[in-house]
């Protein structure tokens, strides 16, 4: 069977907000990264699983990409352990401090750099920012059709996809021309990491990791040789800088981010006494009146 489709999955390494091993916030009100282990964003795992199902069904080639610090290569290896074929890491100090606008622009540059593809899959949203904006913005920047809240792909054929999208109380089936972008919800069980793939792909490295692992590789010729050897075995994780993907410096990172954090508050929710509302017309009317008076409603 020949490879018929190319699917790019964009994933994100996020702090684990579910398993907090210490104080989640620093006294300054910023996120305490040390207390929050870095994990694979959960819905990105669902997106990867959907892509891998397309690999099982249609022999699609699955490419996984992320933007992040050099250690974000770890989520890419994790994706390789589960079945991804190829990976790229977008990393550059210039990308730091990006909001969703700058992030989606950077990812769009990476997708263009990668080349031809049929589908881009993203998790619906990340558990750290909870914006659900990057996927849709990325589609806009690439001028692709998009379907969000995808549960499953019904059918993929050349130039066309039919997918199930979750809506209130059910789902609808939509068709779109490809290439297009889908954002995926928590609708499947991500497959586990595979033993044989772990044994192989734990040796997958980015260029920076190759250099870090051995100082003699700073010799450019020697480095190119090592990279070539890794690439032949599928063990080279592409590492792209802003320049590599041809990104406009003014549109990435902090400079390209119109969103500015004005204030971070550590909100401590305190419980108060409950209030009993009589299940009568009068009780409901009193409650409505109260809610309107204190501007909870209206």
């Amino acid at each position, binding site marked *: 069977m020949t490879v018929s489709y190319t699917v790019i999955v964009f994933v994100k390494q996020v702090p684990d907000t579910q398993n907090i091993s210490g104080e989640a916030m620093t006294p300054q009100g910023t996120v305490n990264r040390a207390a929050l282990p870095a994990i694979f964003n959960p819905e990105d795992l669902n997106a990867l699983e959907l892509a891998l199902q397309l690999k099982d069904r249609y022999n699609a080639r699955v490419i996984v990409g992320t933007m992040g610090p050099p250690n974000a290569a770890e989520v890419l290896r994790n994706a390789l352990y589960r079945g991804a074929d190829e990976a790229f890491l977008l990393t550059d100090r210039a990308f730091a401090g990006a909001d969703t606008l700058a992030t989606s622009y950077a990812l769009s540059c990476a997708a263009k750099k990668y080349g031809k593809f049929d589908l881009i899959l993203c998790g619906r949203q990340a558990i750290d920012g909870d914006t659900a904006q990057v996927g849709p913005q990325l589609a806009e920047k690439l001028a692709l059709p998009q379907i969000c809240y995808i549960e499953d792909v019904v059918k993929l054929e050349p130039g066309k996809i039919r997918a199930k999208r979750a809506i209130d109380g059910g789902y609808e089936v939509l068709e779109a021309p490809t290439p297009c972008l889908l954002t995926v919800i928590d609708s499947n069980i991500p*497959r586990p990491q*595979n*033993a044989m793939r*772990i044994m*192989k792909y*734990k040796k997958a490295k980015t260029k920076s990791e190759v250099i870090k692992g051995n100082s003699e590789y700073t010799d450019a010729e020697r480095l190119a040789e090592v990279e070539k050897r890794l690439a032949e075995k599928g*063990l080279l994780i592409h590492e792209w800088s802003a320049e590599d993907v041809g990104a406009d410096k003014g549109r990435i990172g902090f400079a390209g981010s119109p969103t500015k954090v004005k204030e971070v508050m550590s909100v401590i929710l305190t419980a108060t006494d409950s209030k009993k509302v009589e299940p009568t017309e009068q009780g409901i009317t009193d409650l409505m009146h109260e809610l309107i008076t204190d501007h909870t409603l209206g």
Partner: protein
Amino acid sequence: MENYFLDNKDLQFTLNHLDLNEAVTLREQNYKYAKDYDHAPTDFADALDSYRRVVSVIGEICGENIESRSREVDEAGPHFENNKVTYHPLTQMNLGDLTKAGVMGVMLPYQHGGLNYPVSIYTMMTEMVSRSDASLQNLFGLQDIAETIAEFGSEGQKAAYLPGFATGEFDGSMDLTEPDSGSDLQSVRLRAHQDPKTGQWYLNGMKRFITNGCSKVHLVLARSEDGTSDGRGLSMFICEACPQLVVRRIEDKLGIHGVATCELQYNNVPAQLCGQRRRGLTRYVMSLMNGARIAISAQALGIAEASFRLARKYASEREQFKKSIDQFPPIYEMLASMKTRVTAARALLYEATRAVDLRTVYTHMTDRLPADQLTQEIRDKQKYYNKLAALLTPMSKALSTEIANSVAYDCIQIHGGTGYMKDFNAERYYRDARITNIYEGTTQLQVVASIGGVMQRDGGKRIKELMSLGYEGKLLRLKDKIAAMLEKHLKAIAAIAERKDSTYHDLMARYLVENETFIYVGMLLLRDAKADADREAIVERYILDAEPEFAKNLLKINSGDLTLIDNHRDVIDY
């Protein structure tokens, strides 16, 4: 995120300290496979790193997925209709997870799609699977069947079956027991006959209590030699599920509900001979059973681990008389003893798997090396590890499975009335544990299998080795206690040997094996405490608890009391 590897300090300690370097280096043929297989390790550190990662992935599957499905699997079990077994959908999901994780052919060679892992690492997986769902281990733990084909099958059989086992496409069963042949497998009657014209073998007869007897690939022990009635007339066969092989019924069991235990009828089932004729029981089944005994020892350990943890948690949360019950001496005594027993079982199990791993590599070398490369040293090591593994396998199975029962028992006790109810897993652990000291040879048979090695001092050299590691302070005082026990033990053994009374010998065998176990495990735990001072309290507990038990056994052994032998009928028949 529950992870049954990362939450288990003792298991992690075991992986880090179990010295597998020699076994792995030989198994990987000095890491030559790395040239041909991207996933093969390049050195021991690489191999160990992979083991740790993969065992951790399985730990997560067990802790997160399998555990959450175990209660429902236990309640419903497999479905049987029209001679067809269908596993519970959640059992199928469990197998799907393990298949996707690529651990259905853990020990198989690379060329057949396996991971070429030592049994020590496979055992860590089976232990964790059992902790989450003991019945699932009866399916996951059937990898010894593929391993047996890998060891003794023809090249054609290996090529036909092993890749399917490695991907999880094939499952297997070992069809040994018959209605009239349980512990006594030499009396197996299922008949194998050969068509004189075509040379095709056919099987006719019955098998009973066959775990996963609804499998695709069966290894069958059958009588191939007309006119024989002992073990030397038996051969091993491979056959596949087919209309002539009928699953007549599945058993309604006390525990391990998730797996089907089948009664099989063979109506002229076409089969292939596996290995040589007449060696079915003496060589192949004994090898298969030894592998299975390790797996059951691990299954029991998994149940014991789960029981201990449940009891510890309950005792810390349950308040009576205004404090948590784990603050009362009788309760913390039980908890400390449970933990000590679990740790002891684990120490002996992985000592056994290490010996098995070394035996495997040295046996391969003696079988396969050309004569000019086969040195005396290799031959000696093969003999040594063969004896050590033959001693430790039944010793470990006896210890772990009895401990699983006692720890599951104490777990219910700590829960009180609550533990007797089906609301908690305590009662399931108790039911599941109960089979472990019965199948693959009862504890009584494990004693028979290990007493020879105890009398011949097959573990003596290893115990001496452990004693000479150099201990200080408390550990030295504890070691001296073990040394004193060993001295008495050796005298008792010599006295039994001198008596030349086989009945008395058989009667005392259990106590002798128990005392050997106290000494051996005591030394293993001392070695571990030397490596990690946090383990001192555990070895102290073990040896101080063992001392009076040892003395009690010794009293019996040295008593020379023949009254039971002479008068047991008068007691039983009154």
